[in-house]
């Protein structure tokens, strides 16, 4: 049997009939993590879906009337009601006996903050909806203001560093555990830096009848202050430093994590982004905040057991998540 490749990779890519619900030609920035995440999510869902989309960048850059980048039924209502719009869609489809899967798309502002109540209601009522939170850690659509998801000490336009402040004073809200505490069947985090893991989690969520939740870490070059060309490496550093743990929770219990073979210093991740530049000033408060952030990452690595065993060849970062029991899924 020959293993010789007779087709170029580029040609192979072109020929692969992989569905994406979002067409090219939308108006996202270069290197937008959210646009990429949407493509990855809908590559895994296929076309038989219906999307409730919160107000935000995604809604703006995909639907400047009379154009639309969407190839699936899609509806944007408001900023804070996406969980409820999706609930209504799902109830309607159920009443009509239609099997189309409902997805809700929101940013971190629409999920952690203003839309949290509608999301919580949707989870509590057990609607068969996959809620995807595109987490770029601030209100980017309105011009980079802090949200409940903004990391501690990050600079935004409403958490600027100054004589009295070192960026955001509060911690990033632990939304994945808050969501998981609704004891929904499946809640997970993912990152655009790990596409196969992301797509697999979407397929897994889709296979479950009931509310599921996916929080996708998605860099915003404009808001984070890095070149659009390095979005993926920035996203990967967030995972490799322990700042953004990749985990899975079933019925509230931790069942899977993506291990980090060799954790990198948090400072490496932070230094790549302008939003943390004030932490590298010659300032004792900056040094203290750097230590603080490193401690947060160390804490994540410890509580989720992210540190891989270097001797175990299977334990390479990004290879796969480690199963810790719970529902098996191929």
């Amino acid at each position, binding site marked *: 049997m020959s293993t010789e490749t007779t087709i170029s990779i580029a040609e192979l890519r072109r020929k692969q009939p992989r569905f994406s619900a979002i067409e090219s030609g939308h108006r996202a920035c270069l290197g937008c993590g959210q646009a990429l995440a949407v493509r990855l999510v809908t590559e895994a869902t296929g076309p*038989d879906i219906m999307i409730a989309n919160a107000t935000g960048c995604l809604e703006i850059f995909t*639907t400047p009337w*009379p154009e639309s980048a*969407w190839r699936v039924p899609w*509806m*944007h209502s408001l900023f804070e009601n996406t969980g*409820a719009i999706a609930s209504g869609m799902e*109830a*309607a489809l159920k*009443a009509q006996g239609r099997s189309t899967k409902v997805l809700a798309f929101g940013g971190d502002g629409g999920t952690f903050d203003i839309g949290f109540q509608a999301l919580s209601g949707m989870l509590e009522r057990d609607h068969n909806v996959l809620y995807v939170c595109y987490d770029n850690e601030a209100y980017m659509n309105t011009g980079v203001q802090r949200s409940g998801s903004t990391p501690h000490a990050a600079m935004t336009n409403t958490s600027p560093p100054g004589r009295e402040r070192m960026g955001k004073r509060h911690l990033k809200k632990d939304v994945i555990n808050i969501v998981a505490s609704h004891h929904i069947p499946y809640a997970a985090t993912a990152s655009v830096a790990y596409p196969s893991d992301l797509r697999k989690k979407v397929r897994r969520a889709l296979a479950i009848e009931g509310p599921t939740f996916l929080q996708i870490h998605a860099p915003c070059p404009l808001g984070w202050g890095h070149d659009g060309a390095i979005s993926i490496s920035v996203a990967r550093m967030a995972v490799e430093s322990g700042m953004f743990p990749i985990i899975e929770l079933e019925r509230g219990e931790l069942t899977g994590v993506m291990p980090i073979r060799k954790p990198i210093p948090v400072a490496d991740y932070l230094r790549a982004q302008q939003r943390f530049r004030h932490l590298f000033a010659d300032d004792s408060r900056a040094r203290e905040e750097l230590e603080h952030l490193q401690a947060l990452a160390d804490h994540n690595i410890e509580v989720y057991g992210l540190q891989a065993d270097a001797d175990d060849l299977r334990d390479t970062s990004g290879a796969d998540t480690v199963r810790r029991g719970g529902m098996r899924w191929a």
Partner: protein
Amino acid sequence: MLKALEGSQAIAETVALCRPQVVAAYPITPQTHIVENISKLVANGQLHCEFVSVESEFSAASVVLGAAAAGSRTYTATASQGLLLMTEVLYNIAGSRIPVVMTCANRAISAPLSIWNDQQDSMAVRDAGWIQLYCADNQEAVDTTIQAYRIAEQTELPVMVCMDGFTLTHTLEPIDIPDQALVDNYLPPYQFARRLDARQPISIGTLLSPDFYPEARHSHHQALLNAAERIIEADQEWQALSGRSCGGLLTVEGPDSATIGVLTLGSVIGTFREAVLEYPQAAAAKLLKLRSLRPFPIEALQQAVAGLQDLIVVERALSPGGGGIVGPEVRAALSELPNPPRVHNIAVGLGGRDIPLDLYPRLLRLAEAPQPLRFAVFDADCNKLAPEDR
């Protein structure tokens, strides 16, 4: 067949006859009996629908919006604070041209907190782009609810059926609940042309630049104006089937020779009808029942005031610092006439204040005043207030 029913129970049974597939509601006085009764119908298998007990009115409105866009007939009900909490969604539903039907069990707005009836709530969302129909009694509320589905689905506009809280919702009246066959005959199954469907994907709720926004607003306004004909037709066709009319957009009753008119909306009309009988010595007056606040029936109103020298607009809400809400609209509509009647405007019955029968002869005496009354909270007793607030 007439049955003695509480208004809320009658509405619940009527909603069931309209076969909604998704009902979403959050409890608020005085709407609670409606959704409790619907819950019972669902629990007893008399109504087959997805009943979504949401965590807020904001989500109640959002759930029916999502469900209607996905192709299901829907129902929700609220009042007062709940309606105000929904406000952003109400505009969104109307602007998206999604046909949903809602009952507003009219109630005052806090602060000061009041659970009792006036119409400040629905008046506060007057400009949301919904059709607003006001019911004089519970039979009208039943018939209007059925008509509302037909109107909403024909016009792709949401319809708010306004019935006075407690005065109607909690009052037993002899009510005819129509047969299922009659309602089915009148109300075809819900077909929404812009239904979200994976086989024919469309995008709803897109971003409009200034190049398109004014046209969208114009078409929404025009759709509401055009809805006037559909409202009249829906009422006429319902009358042909059931024998009952709710009075289209606006009705006039009383002697042709009368030179005084009293215009109101909602259940107050019932009080005035009784007062006419109670005070035969009072001046003859026409009663104008405004059923449709949106669309506002300007031509019908202009015709209705023919021969009147004084028109007294009685409403149960106000715009503080301005005056009445319906009154100025009536005044503006009549200003187009060569010899318009003088328009007096009062608010009564705010926050559930009783409207006694003897209010009626006192009202009619306004016609004797040298100047029309621009606006007053007619039954406010200023002796209860500090001098600087009077």
